């Protein structure tokens, strides 16, 4: 978790020019990940977490996409890298797995064939050797009877098995970075835990860095070293897992934490929720993007707060004007509990 970061994203902006206006999907996002580290990125749908990470792989490149900033990886700036250079990195140095493993695998090709394809595009192996490697990989991710399973189609796999196959496919070329975009969202709870444990085990075994994108703080709590909270295309808070969970600074983070169900506390009448809707990415409110939904907004929030360290020495940054002492009292919705106020009954 120390030394030179493996990947450094700086002031990344991904805007899309649409008929309705410019959609600022990602608006000045910076983060870095070290070798072997797991960064959790949390945020609701449309917060830009997936777009930012797909941009790392160059998957958002489109005629109407305006991409700026820097993505430093392996001494290259991926934002400027040409398509061929990008293609060589995809699936070999940086791999990605997605939310819905059924729709992410091609329904007409056998699982083995899809793995072989991923192997052969980056390695000079003949069909037999590549197939042997595919069988080995399926075994590695815990698929029983892999010799038989390579000859099956994705629809013959269960949800968890499909995600395992996706992970196997992502591992084919020993990537340095794995981007997992909501890898457990489409799975049932017990399978979720298995998949998370598998990713964790593989991270230890292969020493690869992982970016875990999710809207589920429970997932983050289990595996991440550091956490980054995104809202409306920006990072609103960033810090170690401990800091985010026990000393959250941004009201949006409080809202996320407050909406968690907890088994260590008596159940409240209602889970708290964050009022309102996320803002339109075309017409963002001036100043803090969260202020329209924030119960603690005040005059100063009409100016955009910078992402900076507000409590010294903790490596914890956030985008909120409130003084840290005031936050401490505000964030308690009831004794010992973090969250926004109970919704009016």
């Amino acid at each position, binding site marked *: 978790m120390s030394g030179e970061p493996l990947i450094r994203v700086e002031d990344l902006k991904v805007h899309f020019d649409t008929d309705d206006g410019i959609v600022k999907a990602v608006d000045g996002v910076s983060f870095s990940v070290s070798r072997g580290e797991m960064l959790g990125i949390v945020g609701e749908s449309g917060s830009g977490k997936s777009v930012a990470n*797909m941009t790392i*792989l160059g*998957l958002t490149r489109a005629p109407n996409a305006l991409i700026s900033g820097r993505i430093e990886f392996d001494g290259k700036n991926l934002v400027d890298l040409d*398509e061929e250079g990008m*293609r*060589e*990195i*995809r*699936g*070999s140095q940086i*791999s*990605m797995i*997605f939310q*819905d493993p059924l*729709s*992410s*695998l*091609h*329904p*007409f*090709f056998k699982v083995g064939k899809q793995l072989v*394809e*991923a192997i052969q*595009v*980056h390695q000079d192996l003949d069909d037999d050797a590549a197939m042997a490697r595919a069988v080995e990989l399926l075994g590695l991710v815990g698929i029983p009877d892999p010799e038989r399973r390579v000859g099956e*189609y994705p*629809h013959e796999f269960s949800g968890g098995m499909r995600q395992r196959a*996706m992970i196997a*496919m992502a591992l084919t070329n020993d990537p340095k970075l794995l981007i997992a975009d909501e890898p457990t969202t489409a799975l049932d709870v017990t399978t979720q835990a298995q998949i998370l444990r598998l990713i964790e085990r593989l991270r230890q075994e292969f020493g690869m860095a992982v970016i875990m994108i999710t809207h589920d703080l429970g997932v983050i709590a289990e595996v991440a070293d550091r956490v980054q909270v995104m809202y409306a295309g920006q990072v609103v808070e960033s810090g170690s897992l401990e800091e985010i969970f026990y000393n959250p600074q941004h009201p949006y983070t409080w809202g996320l934490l407050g909406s968690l169900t907890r088994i260590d506390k008596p159940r409240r009448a209602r889970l708290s929720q964050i009022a309102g809707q996320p803002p339109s990415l075309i017409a963002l409110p001036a100043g803090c993007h969260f202020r329209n939904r924030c119960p603690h907004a005040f005059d100063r929030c009409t100016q955009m707060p910078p992402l900076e360290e507000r409590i010294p020495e903790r490596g914890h940054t956030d985008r909120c004007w409130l003084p840290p002492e005031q936050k401490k009292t505000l964030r308690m919705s009831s004794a010992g509990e973090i969250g926004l106020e109970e919704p009016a009954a």
Partner: protein
Amino acid sequence: MARYIVRRMLWSVLLLILVSAVVFILFYVFPSADPAQLRAGRQANEDQIQAIRESLGLDHSVLTQFWIYIKGVFTPLDLPGTDAHGPLYFGRSYQSNADVFDVIKADLPATVMLVIGAVVIWLAIAIPVGIISAIKSRSLLDRTTMITTLAFISAPVFWLGLVALYLFAQDVGLIPIFPGIGSYAEADSFAGKVGSMLLPWFVLAAATAAIYARYLRSQMIDVMGEDYIRTARAKGLPEKRVIMKHALRSAITPIVTLLGLDVAVLLAGNAILTETVFNIPGVGAETYNAIKRSDLPMIQGITLFGAFFIVTLNLVVDIAYAYLDPRVRYE
């Protein structure tokens, strides 16, 4: 799979019997000229007409006529009043007294040649146009081709045929480069027949090529947005392979269904307009003549043949689909 196919084939036979019954009923329920009278001509007296009626078997009840017909088509049993027997005996034309099966057999080559050539041309045009339009979606190229296809879809075949002749036919055309009307019957070599088919092929293919191009384009656009295309890209596959292998494989599958039915319908005589405009002696032209002359055995025979093509190609399509899409399985 084998059981499935056998079951489908048995159903097909039942369906064909049903189709013959419907044609029989339609022929007798709806007013049409008395075939015996048509055959006898203007000067015939009542006795002559009655004699013809008996020789054609029209004196039997409709039910008996139908039974005789079914017997002739599907069974090897002897038929009363004739020395002919089935299976595949479709009776004789009321008009020319020719064996219906022989007539259809003689007409088929022209129709088959017309249809196959047109299919090759429309696929050869539609597939690349569909793919390129989808990839360059919303570009000037895409918009231009899509408007052009709309024009071809809107143009009626008989009109397009006449325009093609007016522009390109060797006898009457402004730019006389292709053989024109009736050249198929006159051509005596295969190469000559191919030449004579060029204009009809393009005319018959035009509208369908346009429909297929648009359909493939929309399929491709849908598929390109699928998660597994994103996965294919994330694997580091070259874009060409993503499009030609992963996307096209999915997008083209529904086209197979469409193609099977379109070919069947054309073989069944739906190329009637093209055949009429270019005077090609095929099944379509025969249908036109048979209807004009109330020639029940011919109409019946051609209809059954059409139904047979449709049923058969449907089965072929369903089987092909099971191979193309592993999620579809028959037990």
